[in-house]
């Protein structure tokens, strides 16, 4: 594990990697007498080591702006050193495939992967999978029981078994990215480490001969194109910036180029997956010089396709916002799904009403949005929207 991490950090940092990671591992182990052994000790230790390596990576190179954290992603480095062996040479990816076991349902696999490999907490997983914390906890218990009953070992599967598990691995990586891009709890809006890891994993997935596929490329495209917007995600006032407000010249050009390359590569063959659709939307934003000059009508039609396969409330809401941009606030209001407890839904309603000059009604919805906010960053965003003209 240390050798693999040292490889990622680069030849000049091996000694530092070994010492610091070993120290972190020992520190973590010193908790075991008091807390007992964690559920999955190998995965847990792997996470500790990986986290320490990430901290080192961030600390060592003095990086002032968020954008600089993303530089290693945009530049091809020695990590994907072209070793096309049959085995997955990425430890974390191997672990992800190992836990996405066919003995479990898709939902269980994703939940299990997010917990044991990606390092998400149960509440974070619940937020990402639009579920309740208790349901997720129960699902994890059932997953373990099923694995025990099926008497399967959690280990990297043979290369032939990889394609079949790939979709659940993709979903887990996507949800991990989302949690990093829009944290479901806590003081910070963004947790860069999740985004960085997810992009890395998606690219590793797209690069490996046994897992490369149009869908993997599309996922890598989606995540790279979205991560490109991270430098402008949070404004100078510390509040989230909406797409129209983000200064697009600060978007990461390298990641956009990378994303577009993956997108082009994903167009080979005739497979069209949800990843393709989402990546396409992300590319439209990435290439548009401004919000006003965005082809919103095209975005609406892609959401129409997306909703046929994945009718999620999040997608419905995003489609309604796009309709509002393409056809005006009346159409946008009509396209909004019936109220559920979403601060973003209420805020969207407020924005459309304000555009129609109905400021008093708009205010009611903005107040509701603030009340429904689940995190402090969310609340501050809703507060800001309320005070916009």
């Amino acid at each position, binding site marked *: 594990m240390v050798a693999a991490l040292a490889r990622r950090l680069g030849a000049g940092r091996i000694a530092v990697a070994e010492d610091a990671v070993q120290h*972190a591992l020992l*520190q*973590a182990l*010193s*908790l075991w007498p*008091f807390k007992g052994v964690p559920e999955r000790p190998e995965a847990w230790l792997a996470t*500790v080591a990986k*986290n*320490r390596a990430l*901290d080192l990576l961030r*600390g060592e190179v003095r990086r002032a702006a968020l954008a600089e954290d993303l530089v290693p992603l945009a530049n091809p480095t020695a990590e994907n050193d072209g070793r096309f062996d049959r085995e997955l040479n990425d430890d974390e990816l191997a672990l992800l495939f190992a836990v996405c076991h066919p003995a479990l349902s898709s939902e269980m696999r994703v939940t299990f992967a997010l917990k044991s490999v990606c390092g998400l907490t149960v509440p974070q997983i619940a937020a990402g999978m639009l579920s309740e914390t208790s349901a997720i906890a129960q699902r994890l218990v059932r997953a373990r029981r099923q694995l025990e009953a099926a008497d399967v070992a959690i280990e990297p599967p043979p290369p032939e078994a990889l394609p079949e598990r790939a979709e659940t691995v993709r979903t887990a990586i996507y949800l991990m990215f989302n949690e990093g891009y829009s944290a479901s709890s806590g003081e910070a809006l963004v947790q860069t480490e999740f985004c960085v890891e997810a992009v890395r994993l998606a690219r590793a997935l797209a690069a490996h001969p046994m897992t490369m596929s149009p869908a993997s490329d599309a996922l890598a495209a989606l995540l790279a194109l979205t991560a490109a917007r991270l430098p402008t995600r949070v404004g100078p006032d510390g509040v989230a910036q909406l797409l129209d407000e983000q200064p697009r010249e600060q978007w990461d050009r390298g990641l956009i180029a990378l994303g577009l390359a993956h997108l082009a590569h994903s167009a080979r063959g005739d497979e069209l997956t949800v990843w393709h659709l989402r990546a396409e939307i992300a590319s439209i934003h990435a290439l548009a010089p401004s919000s006003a000059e965005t082809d919103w009508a095209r975005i609406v039609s892609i959401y129409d396709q997306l909703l046929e396969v994945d009718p999620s409330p999040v997608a419905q809401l995003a489609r309604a916002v796009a309709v509002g941009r393409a056809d005006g606030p009346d159409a946008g209001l009509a396209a909004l799904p019936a109220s559920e407890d979403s601060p973003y839904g209420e805020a969207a309603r407020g924005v459309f009403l304000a555009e129609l000059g109905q400021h008093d009604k708009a205010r009611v919805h903005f107040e509701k949005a603030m009340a429904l906010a689940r995190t402090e960053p969310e609340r501050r965003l809703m507060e800001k929207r309320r005070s916009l003209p």
Partner: protein
Amino acid sequence: MAQYMLLLHQVPNYDLDLPREKMLEMTKRYMSWAESLGAKGKLAGGEKLTAGGVRLVKVKDGKPVVSDGPYAELKDVVGGYFVIEAKDQAEAEAIAKDCPHVAISAANWIEIRPIESMAEMRAQAAAG
């Protein structure tokens, strides 16, 4: 969310001469504070420690040796502890300030110690 230990310091045996009703009243104050904390999901543990029966184990000539603790001669002892859940140090302090222990006697004080966890250690590593 993080956990903190509140060590309840006091003068040894300060409550030995108190009449029974006073003792009960004090116990009730601690208990109702603990209950309300528990109702908010912020209490993770706690115990009262006996005044007597203290023993110390030290290494002498490479061997562990048990001896009676000099409890009565000390100026300050730990009379008990609580383990609480708080989102950060500031909240832990607010909770501790509310604990009846400090109000009961001017010689009482509370020591707050963060409990080690993975999140703790990462925060320390990132800061240092």
